[in-house]
């Protein structure tokens, strides 16, 4: 008799040492899936034989909703794609619409946008570090350490934009309002706090032998394979290929910034390298924000004053590539006149990165499958759109 009704029951005639693979359903409600992702693992004991990912539980029809709304109204939906880095998604969206409608942006607004986008990159990477620590099993300590800094970043967002997670702060042609008076001082204090927070997490996780032992040499990936799968962002950089759109095709004011792409000669794209890459990138983001604060014009407009009340765009199309927190965030916009886009398309980096999951997971232990999924750092809002 089997307690699992869906599985093959061995009859006495069959070989006594045959084993039966078991399927385990992880998700959509499971602490390790970081949202509503579902993967069905076939396991032979503790070893994963096959993995079948299921997505779509968070599909909200982003592209269609954008096509049904005015260019400005649609902004709020784009915050909710990569909901850990709302500002960066808004930035990509407004850049696409500006490219489509050929609208200029005041210089101060560009700097403000970059500051906000980099802060949300730090925010997103903090969540990764905390949640990844919890996946590996550090009982929430890493999570709470990361949360302290995230709360401070959100407090700053609230002061600037009036909302924490989904600020809807950027506008086509600039940003909604100027920064508050004490912004520079607060932001510098925040950067100090962020650096301290990164060092705390670094000490807690990379300083721990068990953590390193769990992550090193696990699911390595070559640059060629990563490119073939369409993987971008920190995961691609962790394979040893220093490809960052902020350097390769600088947009906004990134060409004026000095920052490094973290790199080591022995990068092999394993779980530890992905972790290391995100940890190192956060220092670079903090550097960029500091330079923005110095270079930013002290006054002036933050929104293009020549914009019409309702934005109407002629026939045309535009595609922008944006270095999002998870990888290459591509927005395609097409207009056939009127105040709504005819077609919007999001190339979401998490979706492409997720395609590597199956081949990474096969042959590993169940416990490793969980941390491999964690190391891909997917956001379901972006995968399912």
């Amino acid at each position: 008799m089997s307690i699992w009704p869906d599985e093959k029951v061995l009859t006495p005639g069959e070989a006594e040492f045959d084993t039966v693979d078991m399927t385990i359903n992880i998700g959509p409600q499971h602490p390790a899936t970081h949202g509503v992702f579902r993967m069905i693992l076939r396991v032979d004991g503790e070893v994963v034989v096959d993995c079948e990912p299921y997505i779509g539980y968070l599909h909200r029809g982003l592209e269609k909703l954008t096509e049904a709304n005015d260019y400005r109204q649609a902004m709020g939906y784009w915050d909710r794609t990569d909901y850990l880095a709302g500002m960066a998604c808004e930035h990509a969206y407004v850049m696409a619409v500006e490219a489509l409608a050929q609208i200029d942006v005041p210089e101060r607004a560009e700097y403000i946008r970059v500051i906000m986008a980099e802060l949300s990159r730090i925010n997103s990477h903090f969540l990764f570090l905390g949640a990844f620590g919890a996946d590996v099993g550090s009982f929430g300590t890493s999570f709470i350490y990361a949360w302290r800094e995230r709360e401070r970043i959100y407090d700053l967002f609230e002061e600037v934009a009036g909302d924490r997670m989904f600020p809807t702060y950027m506008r086509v042609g600039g940003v909604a309002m100027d920064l508050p008076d004490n912004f520079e001082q607060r932001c510098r204090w925040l950067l100090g706090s962020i650096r301290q927070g990164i060092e705390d997490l670094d000490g807690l996780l990379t300083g721990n032998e068990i953590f390193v032992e769990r992550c090193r040499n696990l699911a390595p990936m070559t640059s060629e394979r990563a490119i073939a799968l369409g993987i971008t962002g920190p995961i691609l950089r962790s394979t040893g290929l220093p490809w960052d759109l902020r350097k390769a095709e600088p947009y906004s004011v990134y060409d004026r910034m000095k920052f490094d792409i973290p790199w080591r000669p022995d990068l092999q794209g394993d779980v530890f390298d992905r972790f290391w890459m995100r940890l190192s990138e956060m220092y670079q983001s903090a550097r960029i924000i500091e330079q923005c604060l110095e270079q930013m014009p002290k006054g002036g407009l933050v929104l293009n004053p020549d914009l019409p009340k309702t934005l109407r765009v002629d026939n045309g199309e535009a595609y922008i590539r944006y270095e999002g927190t998870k990888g290459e965030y591509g927005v395609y916009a097409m207009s056939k006149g009127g105040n709504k886009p005819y077609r919007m398309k999001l190339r979401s980096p998490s979706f492409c990165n997720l395609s590597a999951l199956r081949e990474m997971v096969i042959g590993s232990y169940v416990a490793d499958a969980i941390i491999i999924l964690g190391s891909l750092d997917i956001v379901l809002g972006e995968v399912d759109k």
Partner: protein
Amino acid sequence: MTPFSFGGELFGMWNWLDAVVRVVIVVTAMTLVVMYLTYGERKVVARFQQRLGPTKTGPAGLFQAFADALKLVAKEDIRPTNADRWVFELAPYATFVPVFLVLLVLPFAKDWGVRNLTLGMFFVFAVLGLNIVGIIMAGLGSGNKFALLGGVRAAAQMISYEIPLVLSLLAVAMVAGTLDLNQIAMLQEDRPFIVLQPLAFLIFFTAMLSEMHRAPFDIPVAESEIVGGYFVEYSGIRWSMFQLTEYASMWGFSVFGSVVFLGGWAFPFGEDWGWGWQLALTFMKSIAWILTIFWIRTTVPRLRIDQLMAFCWKVLLPLSIVQLVANGFILVYDWPQELLTATSGAGAVLLIAIIITRSVRRPKNKYVGSYRQVGVTS
């Protein structure tokens, strides 16, 4: 002799009534201690994580334990339809009873305890081995694959770690020359056995963490992988019995460990200071032991099952056997006791060295601290 001494003064005529009264006292005390251990863990862990922990229920959240207990009792006791009914329902008792049986032989002070058995230490391992049965019952009977994985992991882990656990205790028993826990405590009046057998202490501590499934060996209950493991399907009172078992075994192991290695009630004041001091000493030592467990839990991540097994069979087991052999030579030829400290200390240094060399050997270590210097472009 106090009314509580092991001679059975309390109800001298009726030995069975004396035993019943003692058991009731110990079990009640234990339940209260366990309730406050959960509160204590929440508070201590919260401080480690820059939080406050429970604050609302009573002064400083002190009644939180009662509120939790009340909530758990009031919850519905759910049995999944595809669970094996009797196996599922009896599993909590099968895990709960052995752990409470351990309490029968623990000497909390010279004269305070339920019964003093001459084979007390042997009784402790014998009874703790039964714990596994309940966990496997819970894992198999729940009709849930996460529970099954948890139960199987727990079985593999507990059976493997029982061997170094027992061997490390045998080393102490060789030195003491007795298995009577009260005698063992009394022998440590001048110096606790941790001084003579530091390696045994390290092995015992590690194996104990594993037996209790505390971090970094919480593989059977891994929250982020198999969401609670063998007790994933339990709710209400049955779930709280598993929880009670976990904390009771933590407390039991802490008292047992402090009796065997830290001198229990005897070190450093001996018998002269009376039972109040003896109880306080046992209590303080076991609390220190428990706080260390909490500290480890908040800091370290979880091992993987193969790493866990490798650590047991390749590191702990050989070292504990080497220690037994060394002890044998020293005791048989009546060599001075300092040699026990020397050999076991060398083993302890070796164990720590094995762990440290593994960390030093990681090739990436030299880059880890230098994010700001490394980069391709600027």
